[in-house]
């Protein structure tokens, strides 16, 4: 029988995907760059969605590490170290995220760090790499986690 903790991991991944999808949807809305209240709400929504998406992704990845009995990274750089860790194949397990998907996760991490510190000094309409990364993560995260699950916890 498969480990029941995959249920929470799948929920966290679904939350990440939903938030990333919504963020991309906001960014592609025709009013995303307008100066009116709709544009402002879309930009705020975009920033919040990407932050929430990355937080859910981290939640899922930490749960995967827990499943494996691996201690999560600690210290000031733990958010960045988590991405580095899951991109690495270690003894007894493959990488959890392939390098290009890990790079996308690192992009949303950097964006979250920025957006969490200050909303007013940057222009979300200029963050094309973040929008592309969120789109990539939304499309590929479920299959990446499914492939890892298949490798580490195959059905009997």
């Amino acid at each position: 029988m498969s480990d029941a903790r995959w249920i929470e991991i799948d929920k966290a991944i679904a939350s990440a995907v939903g938030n990333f999808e919504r963020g991309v949807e906001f960014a592609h809305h025709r009013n995303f760059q307008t100066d009116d209240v709709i544009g402002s709400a879309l930009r705020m929504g975009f920033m919040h969605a990407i932050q929430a998406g990355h937080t859910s992704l981290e939640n899922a990845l930490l749960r995967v590490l827990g499943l494996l009995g691996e201690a999560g990274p600690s210290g000031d750089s733990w958010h960045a170290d988590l991405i580095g860790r899951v991109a690495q194949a270690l003894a007894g397990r493959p990488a959890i995220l392939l390098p290009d998907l890990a790079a996308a996760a690192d992009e949303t991490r950097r964006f979250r760090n920025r957006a969490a510190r200050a909303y007013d000094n940057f222009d979300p309409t200029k963050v094309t790499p973040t929008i592309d990364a969120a789109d990539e993560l939304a499309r590929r995260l479920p299959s990446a986690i499914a492939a890892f699950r298949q490798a580490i916890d195959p059905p009997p």
Partner: protein
Amino acid sequence: MDRIVTLSERKATEARRRCDAVHDLRSALAAYAREHGGRFLLFGSAARGDMRFDSDVDILVDFPADALGDAWNFAERACWDRHLEPDVIARSWCKADFLAHVEPEIEVIQ
């Protein structure tokens, strides 16, 4: 009992440590910038040399788009390695009024 080290003494020591660490950080950032064809722009208390015990390090990353993420990661890591708290942003992401506001105190590292 050993001499008590007051909070204000501890804060002063930490502020000095952070200033010294930023001095070392500059060299690392400059070497990276030269090697990778971009520049880092230091601003805020780290650029002015008046860091407090809890000051972070404000850095604008000004690199070509395809090198931006790696340069950003390098700046973060260089700060963490020196027990400094990075506050990094891509220059290309910034609003014009924000850049105009910080422009007078920017220290270009390249």
